[in-house]
């Protein structure tokens, strides 16, 4: 005898459930976690290094980097003066909650106010794998072109701040800022937006102040 069983359940992947567990652990230790995502070469590590240099005397910062190979980015974070953990993903094109869960024991959470997680360079997959971070940040860059919000809507929708790096190169590229911003606004209304250059330092202060405010607010907000 056949019958239909009503289910109506959202497919919350195992990853998403573990992301919640990661978040609970971070909350337990009052550690504010930020997940940085971008295409390869957009400037994640450079912006992280500049942010660390500006904030490490105000907050205790630890870094986690995800890459398929090398410890180049964790080394750069360590050179900037913070403890850094390298995850080599073994070919996976994104960090997921499992990898972060397995890396968290290497982080001194009680001694960390701000956990900076640098994701694998990729505009597609990281958007589908929440890590349990408090903030998801996307770094776009001028040479990538202004059509990226239109081509990668899931990524642009899933972040709470957008940095546009390499603004010093605007004179050399055909980047329509209005077209870019129009697309971003439609996908993610009111998204915090920071045009800047990690290279020249232009616009960095606004971004760093905003980040510092998010961290301070979190640390002083007693539940």
């Amino acid at each position, binding site marked *: 005898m056949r019958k239909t069983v009503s*289910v109506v359940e959202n497919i919350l992947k195992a990853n998403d459930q573990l992301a919640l567990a990661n978040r609970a652990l971070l909350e337990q230790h009052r550690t504010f976690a930020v997940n940085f995502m971008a295409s390869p070469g957009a400037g994640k590590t450079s912006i992280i290094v500049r942010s660390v240099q500006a904030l490490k005397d105000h907050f205790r910062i630890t870094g986690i980097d995800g890459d398929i190979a090398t410890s180049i980015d964790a080394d750069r974070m360590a050179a900037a003066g913070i403890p850094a953990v390298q995850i080599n993903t073994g070919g996976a094109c994104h960090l997921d909650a499992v990898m972060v869960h397995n890396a968290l024991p290497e982080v001194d959470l009680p001694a960390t106010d701000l956990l900076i997680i640098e994701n694998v360079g990729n505009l597609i997959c990281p958007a589908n794998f929440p890590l349990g971070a408090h903030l998801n940040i996307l770094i776009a860059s001028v040479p990538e072109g202004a059509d990226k919000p239109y081509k990668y809507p899931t990524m642009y*929708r899933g972040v709470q701040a957008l940095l546009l790096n390499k603004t010093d190169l605007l004179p050399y590229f055909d980047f329509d800022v209005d077209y870019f911003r129009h697309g971003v606004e*439609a996908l993610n*209304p009111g998204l915090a937006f920071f045009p800047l250059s990690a290279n020249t330092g232009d616009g960095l202060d606004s971004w760093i102040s905003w980040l510092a405010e998010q961290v301070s607010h979190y640390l002083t907000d007693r539940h």
Partner: protein
Amino acid sequence: MHELPFVESILQITLEHAEKAGARKVVALDLVIGQMTSIVDDSVQFYWDILSRGTLAQGARLKFQRLLALYRCQDCGHTYSLDGHHLACPQCDSACVQLVQGDELRLESIEIEA
């Protein structure tokens, strides 16, 4: 992409409900998948065929109800789907738009043999 973890979850939810309903066999699944979820039907089918082997759900037919990504303009009320060129309202060019359909990712029901 990455349909494997998605299929693992569908299988887990399916077997839970099937066992609770005293099923001998699961014959079909009704999946509702929104356009914004980047889930590819063929990949789901591929992983399903492998993962469901040896379970109550082996051989169950997957039925995909695809929901288009739909935006509604907060200014003029126009509802539209993505055409690959516009994100803002094609009627009034406002960027005050909201996704009203397209994020769905759920198992609606399963058909069992009791």
